[in-house]
């Protein structure tokens, strides 16, 4: 399993996730019978200090749920999450989470929704400081100025309101706020998905610079595979709640093994008019409400075998830090 990612023992992972499961209680239709929806289905991975794990997958595959679990925003159903040596799942999870909470932050997709429109930018950025408490007025003001400089915005911005800024600038403000308490690990949930191309590259580069300067580790969630390639160290691919493949970035993009990853990469339109894409993969993402036994991708997989419809493939290391959950390997 993820042991395969631990090739370098000097670089012990700061985040370890084992067999993580998250279920939600839902009702089927209006007033329908209750049901259990397994949004995250036995996933395991590591994140090493100062690196970025890119988490990709289509809508509803469980990416955001994974991100929220990782920073303790929602409790796990089962499985284990250790952050900086503290296990935040299980009986003593609450106490462990309290110890590491200040090291964790979250950057959201929507630069509009995540900033309070009635608060000045400076106060938005200082929100985590105010919640933590114990800062003098001067320290707080200095920190806000420093943060604005860090994300490449002029200091005067502190006095203005979020709506006066473009999407890209608002995302910078969101990042400044996330950095306020000097976190070590930041979950970025689709931080550039709502931005135009010319803004995306600026924010990606900013996140890379911050990582270099501050030694941050990221879980970077996105549905855009090219965006993930531009920022990740390792990449994990989710499908219907499961992690189907993970590998160092270059390996995953140049030699994908899982049939779903292959189809996904193939489906992305390239800005290259000479490329001829193969015919699209048929079918749709299966409902995770009534999962069939076996591999979740079986209904769409061009390589499906009899065993695939019976047994769920377990993740297996295949060398070079590559982990694949598919009966072909």
């Amino acid at each position: 399993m993820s042991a395969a990612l631990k090739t370098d023992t000097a670089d012990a992972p700061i985040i370890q996730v084992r067999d993580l499961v998250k279920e939600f209680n839902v009702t089927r239709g209006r007033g329908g019978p209750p049901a259990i929806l397994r949004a995250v289905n036995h996933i395991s991975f590591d994140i090493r200090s100062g690196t970025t794990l890119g988490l990709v997958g289509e809508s509803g595959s469980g990416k955001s749920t994974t991100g929220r679990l990782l920073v303790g925003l929602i409790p796990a159903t089962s499985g284990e999450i250790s952050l900086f040596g503290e296990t935040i799942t299980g009986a003593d999870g609450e106490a462990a989470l309290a110890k590491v909470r200040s090291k964790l932050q979250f950057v959201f997709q929507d630069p509009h929704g995540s900033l309070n429109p009635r608060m000045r930018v400076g106060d938005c950025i200082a929100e985590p400081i105010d919640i933590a408490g114990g800062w003098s007025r001067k320290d707080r003001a200095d920190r806000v100025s420093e943060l604005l400089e860090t994300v490449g915005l002029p200091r005067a911005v502190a006095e203005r309101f979020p709506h006066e800024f473009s999407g890209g600038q608002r995302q910078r403000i969101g990042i400044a706020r996330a950095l306020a308490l000097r976190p070590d690990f930041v979950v970025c949930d689709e931080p550039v998905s709502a931005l135009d191309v010319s803004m995306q590259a600026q924010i990606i580069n900013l996140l890379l610079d911050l990582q270099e300067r501050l030694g941050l580790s990221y879980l970077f969630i996105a549905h855009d595979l090219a965006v993930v390639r531009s920022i990740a160290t390792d990449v994990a691919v989710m499908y219907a709640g499961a992690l189907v493949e993970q590998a160092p970035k270059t390996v995953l993009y140049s030699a994908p093994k899982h049939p779903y990853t292959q189809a996904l990469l193939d489906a992305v339109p390239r800005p290259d008019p000479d490329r001829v894409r193969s015919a699209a993969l048929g079918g749709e993402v299966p409902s995770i409400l009534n999962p069939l036994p076996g591999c979740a991708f079986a209904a769409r997989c061009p390589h499906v075998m009899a065993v695939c419809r019976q047994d769920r493939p377990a993740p297996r290391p295949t060398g070079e830090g590559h982990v694949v959950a598919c009966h072909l390997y």
Partner: protein
Amino acid sequence: MAVPLLEVDDLTVRFRTDAGWMTAVDRVSLAVGEGEALGIVGESGSGKSVTALSILRLHAAATTRMPTGKIHYGGKDLLTLPTREMRQIRGGEIAMIFQDPMSSLNPVLTIADQIGESLRLHQGVDQATARKRAIELLDLVRIPDAARRVDEYPHRLSGGMRQRVMIAIAIACRPKLLIADEPTTALDVTIQAQILDLLRDLQRELGMSVILITHDMGVIAEFARRVMVMYAGRVVETAPVGQMFRRPVHPYTEGLLTAIPKLDVDVRRLPTIAGSIPDPTAVIPGCRYSPRCPQVQESCRRDSPALLPAGPEREARCPPRVAAMAKETVA
């Protein structure tokens, strides 16, 4: 292009806003040939949707100042056509699909009813025929189990299936032109590929012209034959697709192409475009891209650049680059 099917000539659209009048679309001209796939690409707010909606006169009149310019179609000017005639063209000869299919589908009508409505309005067919045609159309857009699905309501369908239904409605009356405004932007990438395949097949089978609007250069490369790049309400470049990707003329097109995250190679740091998209109400003298342009010259901030010929079938709104190119060709 012999005689274009649709020709937009100097279209300008202004909106009244709190900050005064803003020009959303500024003297845009374009032509679509019969059976041609034209791509319009640009970042948000560049005027793509306003251009498309203006062709079909789908703007709430109260907010818009009557657009100026001409939209030639079948010997008529769509901008001045009587409302009744316009209604016949809309959804009949020219159809449109949008990014969010749910907002244009009626949640309380079955799919059969919604497709039938269009057929009854434009072709006056009876209910039984409309239902039969609806099933055929669902088959055509490759919805499995069409005979059963036709009686379902839109909320029961996935995003990809809803977009197929929208396409079925759009092609119900065999339009000559389909305007697709970000038809795959809200969809997952494997579903996007299915919808793009479907649109291309339908275009060929039905001989339709298509205007495809997107912010995604990849979608343009895959689908369009000719492309028009918009920036801040203006057309900055038009070119055959291959030429634009191989050799962009306008510095904005060039910047955009290099700033796109790359899927097939590792890049250490992406090149960026400085600054951000201008506020739509901002007055920028001269070239609207000049505050961000790495190649800006004195004259750019002074004179509003015209769209200049830059080779066969090519135009660009950048006098310095067009002049430089002309020199290269001579040399």
